[in-house]
């Protein structure tokens, strides 16, 4: 009896219930990213409001307007997509979409806990940084495609801002690799079982935090979308849902970078208590980092582009190289050379 190919219904059920699909679609995957990005939008507005002694969103739901961003999501979805006629339609629509995909792709590499890790890549950290290096290119293409002055200037600013902070971001994460001896993020977390890396790597952690805020293009480094100067920068021409995709990518990157900071410097899923609490610990540390980064928004003014570039290349790069030297002497002991 010829064995029939498994009929498609069986196959789809098998696929949907496979553990990988559950991880991809539910926890570290798509739905959790959508919900967390929406909640972060609300949290960002709420905390900035409280810092400025006002109340912030409060109407949409009983406790503190937490569903405000879901209401915005529905409102923006029904807006008309006005694409300027001289705009380049292909890049105009695809650039924010792939910006969102790249931002969400970062979450797959981060080990929230050993069993909810989607892809345990041997070269985890360089792949993460490779995805991070690509997003300003998409912002440049988005700004260029809108074919109007302010978005183009915003796109160019994103390109030049990237050169200022990208190299210190890399060199500060090299300190972690030297201590852990591997790129694999799970091995980095396990290497921190004796002591978290934030203690020997304090300088590196500060540089990493500063440059990751610049990578997310949040205040004080939000030059590409500086509201007062170049009206929302590269997002100025974006209508309805595409504007949401452009904004959402920023909050997904905020979530991804805070999770990476918690994984690299604060010992990921390691913490007192039984082993299955790991997921709680990693999410707890990530939330602390998110609140810290959001508080930065309330406290600092915007940095000028030439200041950012000058200090990025002199101060941040020098501190990153000093951090590598310190870590080297920590490992090798002083009479090394």
């Amino acid at each position, binding site marked *: 009896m010829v064995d029939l190919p498994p009929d498609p219904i069986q196959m789809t059920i098998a696929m949907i219930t496979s553990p990988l699909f559950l991880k*991809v679609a539910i926890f570290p995957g798509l739905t959790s990213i959508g919900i967390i990005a929406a909640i972060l939008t609300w949290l960002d507005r709420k905390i900035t409001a409280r810092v400025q002694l006002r109340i912030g969103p409060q109407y949409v739901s009983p406790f503190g307007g937490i569903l405000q961003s879901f209401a915005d999501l529905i409102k923006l979805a029904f807006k008309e997509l006005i694409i300027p006629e001289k705009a380049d339609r292909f890049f105009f629509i695809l650039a924010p979409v792939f910006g969102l*995909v790249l931002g969400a*792709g970062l979450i797959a590499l981060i080990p929230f806990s050993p069993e909810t890790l989607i892809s345990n890549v*041997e070269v985890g950290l360089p792949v993460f940084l490779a995805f991070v290096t690509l997003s300003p290119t998409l912002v440049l293409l988005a700004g260029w495609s809108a074919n109007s002055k302010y978005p183009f200037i915003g796109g160019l600013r994103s390109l030049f801002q990237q050169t200022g902070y990208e*190299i210190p971001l890399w060199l500060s994460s090299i300190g972690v690799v030297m201590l852990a001896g591997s790129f694999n993020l799970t091995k980095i977390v396990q290497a921190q079982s004796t002591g978290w890396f934030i203690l020997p790597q304090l300088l590196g952690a500060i540089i990493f935090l500063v440059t990751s805020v610049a990578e997310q293009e949040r205040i004080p480094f939000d030059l590409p979308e500086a509201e007062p100067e170049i009206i929302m920068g590269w997002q100025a021409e974006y209508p309805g849902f595409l504007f949401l995709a452009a904004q959402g990518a920023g909050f997904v990157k905020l979530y991804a970078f805070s999770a990476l900071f918690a994984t690299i410097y604060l010992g990921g899923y390691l913490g007192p208590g039984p082993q299955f609490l790991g997921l709680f610990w990693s999410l707890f540390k990530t939330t602390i980092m998110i609140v810290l980064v959001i508080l930065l928004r309330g406290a600092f003014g915007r940095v000028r582009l030439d200041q950012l570039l*000058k200090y990025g290349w002199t101060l941040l790069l020098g501190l990153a190289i000093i951090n590598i030297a310190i870590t080297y002497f920590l490992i090798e002991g002083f009479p090394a050379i």
Partner: protein
Amino acid sequence: MVAEGIPELVYYLGFITVNTLALVVILILLVSPRDKKPTPVKRAPFESGQIAVGRGRTRFIIQYYPYLLMFVVYDVVAMFLFAWAVNLRTLGAAGTIPVLVFVSVLLVPLGYALHLANRPENW
């Protein structure tokens, strides 16, 4: 056959791309309202109220060109530093001398680029 972890990453990226593209296409085709006769003003580029004059993709001075060039060079430096940082414990001092020379020699063009970038009359 492929390195461990890459198929799941490709599966994840494919899953997200398909979902986002499907969402955008559905929104564009079905959900968002369509204006049959868009007035020219509606589709003009948004310049906070002013009439857009001149080319959209304006000319710009390349005062920050040295920084962009240094970004390419220090990307390459970071590539070798990552390779060195992975097994620093087994390499010891003998392995670090080439990297030390590599990084210190490459500080020279950084100085020249910073010197040039801070003098905008050169561009």
